[in-house]
Every structure is written in structure tokens, then in C-alpha cells.
């Protein structure tokens, strides 16, 4: 078996003779410890399997937080030629546009400390979380279609936030190619009740403190300073996105036969980008992504409302909102010419550098904000997109800490009450819908987020701007 080769600091190549059928090499960003974790489960096999997809324009890429997923590894990036390549529903995943948004508050840690318990209690009441909780907004008949086609724009039009928020969301919170008619009634049925809910699993809302600044200029542009209180929201497209992925995976299974595509794992099912099925998926995926943008926009509104009620100031500035699971058409340079590719990001974040035309005006001089949630009770990071992302990783960087331990083992290793005690000792207060869900998300179940961001910083895919540490957590 061909072995991994080091191609420079924190860079490894998985040569295409690693597995028969690989059309391109694999490329992994990691330090030695992270690489050990990556080689422990089936991540390498999954990187190799993705390298077998038709029409890839270069390597099958894995970020330092990569771990085993379904079909694609989590932390994977794959770019294909739109005319010769395929789109894979599994390459985006079940939680379409699972993503993160950061709100900067006008408060310093000292202003907030006496009010943390009340804030958490009220946020927990205002934002439906856990499983099966319905959103307070009952959508009328066809209104779901409006949400799917207009995303955060629908939310702002319906008084959930301000126009200015829309400038600070990837794709301005509305992917224009979305088409609600490509989304099944079932997906709408699953989603309609869940709009404006946080969900369960690794989704959360955290009140955090900016604890370190690494890049003064970028931090200033993002409106962040030391000791400032911020709010980080992590959730996605809920049951709607899950059902869209399920529906199209099923459709793409048929497509494999129809388009004569042979793959080692059915979970990778894919169809040509330019096929009817491929185009249908991309429109439905965009609609699901819009649902997620609207979802995070509504949660933002309620968060502002709670801060306003308790601290008499709900002026929480949206810093940015990024997608972690998505496929997008983007342009990259090949020598002197520009070429459009379809980039699948499965647990990876867009990281456009300074000067990129798709970075919103107010951040164009420093690069797009990249939001990296850590595990519960540990640090999260704000990064800025950097130049090497354009030449090496299709404008992509890591997305989080990445799981290192199964949920069952995580729950076995610690009881919920011990975990709450530990977090409390660290100064982190928690409100949680499911105690079992809490232990599954314990910090030791994740890789070290510090190492993950150090790797992407060192290799120049993005650079460190600020570190955030939690003081309050709301979990589903």
C-alpha cells in the first residue's frame, strides 16, 4: 500500500496509487498528532473514495479537523469541473448549510457577569432547542416557499433583524439559484415546524468573551476587541435539509446506473452537474441553505430581544455568518485564465482572502471572517481568509474541532452532573435540553481546536484574528 508522504510542514499527500480507482491524489493538512487521529478511523479511505469521483479538477482535500463521515469525510473539500464533473448530495451532507454566525455585543465581560444566569434562562425560553420543539412562527400555506427562495431576506422583511445584517452573511443570506419547487412536500413538512429552532446534537448558542486578539487590523474591521462579549450561534437547515439530502441521495442512486458511474460507496452517490437531477439537487440545496440562513437570522432576532429586555441594549452587531456544509460555483485562477468550478465543502468553511470581490466591502481590506466553533467549554476562533486558500484549497479552510471520540464512549466516560460541575468550575454556565446529549458533546470527545487552527494559520489558508472563550452555553 502506498503511504502518506509529507510534502512540507503540515502538508501530506495521499498518492493516487493508495487505492485502485483514485483519479487524483488526496491532500491532507495536519500536524503529527492530528494526522494520527485521521489515520485511526476510515478518514483516509473516504479521502481516497472521493478521489474516485468523475471530473475532479485536483486533489481530494482534507482539513486538519477531518474525521470519518458518511461517503465524504467531515472536513473534506472537493472541486469539480461543472461540464465533466459530478455533484454529490453526500458531498454536502444531511445538514445543508449547517453553519455559524457571530454577534458582537456592546458589553464588556464585567457588565455581563451578574446577569449571565438570567440571560441564559431567557435565551433558553426564547429560542426553541432540543428535539421536536416547534418554532413560534407558524408559516402560512405557501410562505415556506418564500423562506426557501429568499432566506435571510425573508426573515428581515418579516422584522427579524435589519437590512444591514444581510451584508454580513455569506451570499448575503440568499442563494439566488434556489427553487422551492425542487424541494419535496415531505422536506417542507419536516422543516415548516422547525424554522427558528436550534436543534440538538452539536448545535448550540454560546455567550463568549473575546479573550485574545492576534490580528489588530482584522479584529478592528470585524468590530472585535478584548474583553468584549459576543454570541456564537451554530445550527443549520434542520429536518428540511436532512430530508432534501435523503430525497436526492435516493434519486442519485438511480443516477449512478443511468449515467454509468461506478463508486465504492453508495453514500457517495452523484450525478453529472449539468444533468437534470444535478441541477434539481443544486436548486433544492440552495433552498435548504436559504432556510438555514433564515433560521439563524430569526435566532439572532430573539437573542437581541433578550439582551434588550435584560440589559436594555439589544444592539448586537452581526459580525458574519458562514456555511460549513455547502456546494458552490466559484472562480479560480489557472495560470492566466479563470475557471469556474463546483466546490463541495463538507465540514469546511469558505475563506476568501483580502481583495476578493465576493468579500463584503467593509471586510475586503482584511479578508472574509471565518468562524470556527470549538467544543463545548473550550475556545472558539475567528479567522480571516488568506491567500493560500485560493491557490491550494479552493477558497476553503477548517470548520471546527472535529470529533475524536464516539458519542457512546463520550457518554460512558463522564456523567452529566460531573460534566456540569467541571464546566461550572471553569466559569461556564450551561442550559441544556437533553442531559444525555450534553455528555455526548463533552470537550474530550473533540480534537484540540487550538492545533486545528494553528495548522490552517501556519499553512496560510486563513489567519488567526481572535480567540473566544465561553461563559454561557445553551444546548439542544
Amino acid at each position, binding site marked *: 500500500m502506498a503511504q502518506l508522504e509529507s510534502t512540507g510542514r503540515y502538508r501530506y499527500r495521499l498518492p493516487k496509487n493508495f487505492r485502485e480507482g483514485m483519479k487524483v491524489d488526496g491532500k491532507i493538512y495536519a500536524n503529527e498528532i492530528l494526522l494520527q487521529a485521521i489515520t485511526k*478511523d476510515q478518514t483516509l479511505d473516504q479521502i481516497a473514495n472521493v478521489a474516485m469521483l468523475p471530473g475532479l479538477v485536483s486533489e481530494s482535500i482534507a482539513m486538519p479537523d477531518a*474525521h*470519518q*463521515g*458518511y*461517503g465524504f469525510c*467531515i472536513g473534506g473539500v472537493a472541486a469539480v469541473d461543472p461540464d465533466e464533473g459530478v455533484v454529490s448530495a453526500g458531498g454536502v*451532507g*444531511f*445538514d445543508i448549510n449547517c453553519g455559524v454566525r457571530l454577534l458582537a455585543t456592546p458589553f464588556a465581560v464585567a457588565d455581563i457577569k451578574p446577569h449571565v444566569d438570567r440571560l441564559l434562562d431567557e435565551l433558553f425560553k426564547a429560542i426553541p432547542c*432540543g*428535539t*421536536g420543539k416547534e418554532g413560534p412562527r407558524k408559516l402560512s400555506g405557501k410562505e415556506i416557499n418564500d423562506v426557501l427562495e429568499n432566506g435571510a431576506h425573508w426573515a428581515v422583511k418579516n422584522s427579524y433583524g435589519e437590512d444591514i445584517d444581510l451584508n454580513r452573511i455569506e451570499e448575503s443570506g440568499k442563494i439566488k439559484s434556489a427553487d422551492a419547487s425542487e424541494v419535496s412536500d*415531505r422536506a417542507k*413538512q*419536516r422543516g415548516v415546524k422547525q424554522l427558528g429552532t436550534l*436543534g*440538538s*446534537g452539536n448545535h448550540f448558542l454560546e455567550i463568549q468573551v473575546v479573550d485574545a486578539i492576534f490580528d489588530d487590523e482584522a479584529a478592528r474591521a470585524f468590530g472585535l476587541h478584548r474583553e468584549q462579549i459576543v454570541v456564537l450561534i451554530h445550527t443549520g437547515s434542520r*429536518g428540511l435539509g*436532512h*430530508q432534501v*439530502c*435523503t430525497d436526492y*441521495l*435516493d434519486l442519485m*442512486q*438511480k443516477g449512478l446506473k443511468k449515467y454509468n458511474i461506478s463508486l465504492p*460507496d*453508495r*453514500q457517495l452517490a452523484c450525478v453529472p452537474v449539468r444533468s437534470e437531477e444535478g441541477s434539481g439537487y443544486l436548486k433544492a440545496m440552495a433552498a435548504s441553505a436559504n432556510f438555514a440562513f433564515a433560521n439563524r437570522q430569526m435566532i439572532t432576532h430573539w437573542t437581541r430581544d433578550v439582551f434588550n429586555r435584560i440589559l436594555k441594549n439589544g444592539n448586537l452587531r452581526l459580525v458574519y455568518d458562514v456555511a460549513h456544509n455547502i456546494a458552490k460555483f466559484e472562480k479560480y485562477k489557472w495560470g492566466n485564465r479563470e475557471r469556474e468550478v463546483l466546490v463541495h465543502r463538507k465540514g469546511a468553511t469558505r475563506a476568501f482572502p483580502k481583495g476578493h470581490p465576493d468579500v463584503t466591502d467593509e471586510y475586503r481590506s482584511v479578508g472574509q471572517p471565518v468562524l470556527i466553533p470549538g467544543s463545548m467549554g473550550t475556545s472558539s476562533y475567528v479567522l480571516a481568509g488568506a491567500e493560500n486558500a485560493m491557490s491550494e484549497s479552493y477558497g476553503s479552510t477548517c470548520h471546527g474541532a472535529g*470529533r*475524536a*471520540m*464516539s*458519542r*457512546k*464512549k463520550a457518554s460512558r466516560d463522564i456523567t452529566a452532573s460531573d460534566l456540569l460541575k467541571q464546566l461550572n468550575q471553569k466559569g461556564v454556565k450551561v442550559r441544556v435540553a*437533553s442531559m*444525555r*446529549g450534553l455528555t*455526548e458533546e463533552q470537550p474530550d470527545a473533540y480534537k484540540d481546536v487550538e492545533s486545528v487552527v494553528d495548522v490552517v494559520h501556519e499553512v496560510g489558508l486563513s489567519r488567526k484574528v481572535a480567540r473566544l472563550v465561553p461563559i454561557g452555553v445553551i444546548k439542544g
Partner: protein
Amino acid sequence: MMETFQILEHTADIGFEAYGGTEPEVFANAAIALVSIITDPEQIAIRGERSIHVDADDREQLLVRYLNEVLYVIDGDSFLPAKAAVTLHDNQALSATLYGEERTERHDVRTDVKAITYHQLAFQETETGYSIRVFVDI
């Protein structure tokens, strides 16, 4: 009594292996194994039923489509099954009746299951009957 299922580990997600003396039995036990990831099946009373019917091109697809139907009943229709009765028409079609009740605040629902996957999916004959292995995304 023979064990009807057990939960399996996976770095990010979770799976199960279900057992049954007959094919309909193993399909029925797989549905309850799925429910057990979401909530405790013992806490679900039988007050109603839902019927599902699935066609597929092969057995793997039949299994995935069937469990996705069960998941839709749980997540889209808010109905929690405690028991399932399955009739297999051949390798490519099945009908099932799910017995249980509508979800209420009383049920301790631990997690959402996003979807059923083909990851390491297996349907096998064993010494005592059949086993099914499935991983789900949560």
C-alpha cells in the same frame, strides 16, 4: 429471550445491529432499534398506528428507504412507534404497520436522527436467523 438489537459506535454518529429469527422480524426490530436512538421505546404507549409501504430496486435500498419512512413518521408526523409488524413482498417491496403514539412533552426525546445512511450497511443470515447493520446521521 434473544436480544433484538444493539447500538454500535462511530466517531461522529451512531449505528445499530438488529437481529431476528425471520426476515420480517429483523426488519421490525431494526425500526425499534432506530426509535431507541431517539427515545426509550419502553416509554411509548400503543394508542395508534401508521402504515407504510416501500418499493426499491434491491434489498439495501429497501432497507434504507424503509427506515427513512420510519424516520419520516417520527420527525415529519410526530408519531413514535414502539412496535412494528412487517410483511415482505419480495426483496423489493414491503409493507409495515407501526404501533405507538403521537409524541408529547412526556416523552424524553434525546436526539434528532437526521437520516439513514448506506455506510457499512449490511443484511446477513446468521446461525439463528438474520441481522441488519445500519449507521444513522445524528
